[in-house]
């Protein structure tokens, strides 16, 4: 097995994708603490910050995974384009999905959203009005930052679009990784595809629930 062959690079894509999916799931689990109230969310945020070197190891790991995932995908996409220099006059699809055919586009848009998302919540430079808030016990008030942010419709729109693109990307990506890693067979291939779409929807709804709850006044 060579990691530079077509199959090897598919493995790189699938494995890095699955690990990044792990982050998407863990991040959602943390975010949902917003429903447990300010104390739970701010304490969780503080705990993460206190990890120190551990936090940086995780950040660098994620950055590395994302870099590998993006660079490999662009390389593969260029090769795929070269493999059919002249397109068909009539194009019909029978098995493929829009999500599957737009993986590069949705992936790059997610990347662009991610930069803005970090500028918003991590570096706190995108929206100075909600940046660097502290709660009564002197901790960074993540809860208030989230609530004040999502009271602005433009931020909500960008957020829902961003997590929507993540969902679209994953609706092909999850099932596709299982096939690439060779864990599918005739009996389960369709079920795996459907389960992938279902998980993607669940993640999207989980993330979108947060601004929805703020807009509806459930979280205030």
């Amino acid at each position, binding site marked *: 097995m060579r990691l530079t062959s077509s199959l090897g690079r598919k493995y790189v894509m699938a494995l890095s994708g699955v690990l990044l999916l792990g982050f998407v799931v863990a991040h959602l689990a943390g975010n949902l603490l917003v429903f447990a109230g300010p104390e739970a969310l701010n304490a969780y945020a503080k705990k993460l910050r206190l990890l120190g070197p551990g936090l940086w190891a995780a950040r660098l790991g994620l950055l590395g995974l994302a870099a590998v995932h993006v660079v490999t995908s662009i390389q593969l996409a260029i090769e795929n384009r070269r*493999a059919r220099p002249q397109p068909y*006059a009539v194009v019909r699809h029978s098995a493929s999905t829009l999500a599957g055919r737009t993986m590069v586009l949705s992936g790059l848009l997610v990347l662009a959203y991610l930069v803005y998302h970090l500028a918003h919540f991590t570096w706190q430079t995108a929206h100075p009005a909600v940046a660097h808030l502290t709660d009564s016990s002197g901790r960074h008030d993540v809860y208030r930052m989230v609530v004040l942010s999502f009271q602005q419709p433009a931020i909500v729109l960008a957020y829902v679009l961003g997590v929507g693109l993540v969902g679209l990307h994953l609706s092909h990506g999850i099932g596709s990784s299982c096939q690439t890693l060779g864990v599918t067979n005739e009996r389960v*291939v369709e079920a795996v595809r459907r389960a992938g779409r279902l998980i993607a929807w669940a993640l999207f709804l989980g993330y979108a629930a947060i601004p929805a709850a703020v807009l509806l006044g459930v979280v205030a």
Partner: protein
Amino acid sequence: MNLSLVVWRQKGAQTPGRFERYEAKDVSPDLSFLELLDVVNEGLITQGIEPIAFDHDCREGICGSCAMMINGLAHGPQPAVATCQLYLRHFKDGETITIEPWRAKPFPILRDLVVDRSAFDRIIQAGGYVSVNTGEAPEANSIPVPKKDADMAMDAAACIGCGACVAACPNASAMLFVAAKVAHLGRLPQGRVEAKQRVDQMVDAMDREGFGNCTNHYECMDACPKAIHVKAIAFMNREYRFPRRKPGT
């Protein structure tokens, strides 16, 4: 029935091609698609026009020659048949049908609808065989083959090497073809011995030819005239990672 054909015409590998429109008037719905092209060609010959070049041989769905894209679908709209087994009754009277050659860099167009598929031959030469003489068929019970293995090997062995998987793939990937050969030989005891080197060499050969990379769209499975399942690709993915040791797994 009457049909309008929009056909890709290209004199040679180096000359640019273009679409030409031909009318097929009062043809029987019971004609096969290749017979339709025969009828149209006879008309073209009487008009002094060069007939449409297309590959065909057995006309019974086992040789894999009749490669063409019909209205954007490899081998046309019927599932699990080659173009030769596609009949005009599957089309509507008065329909316009666009016919194109397979389009992939490793399949250069030779003329009209005829492409050079020797890239597949080179992939087979890289390892798609059993290199020892296995002699006569052994006594049936002397080498037990688990049913699961026999089934998958037989399903994969149905591949006729037509190239529809490449033609239908949005990435022009040859994964289903290569996977079919890997699964066909690798699941049987005679082919098992060389399984590891076979998958490595065939994947290398596939990459050398300039096919695209599989992104699991599964268009290939729908286009395949032998309905070869993408489970073969999953099997090849496993084989490439670490070949299995025990039969039937």
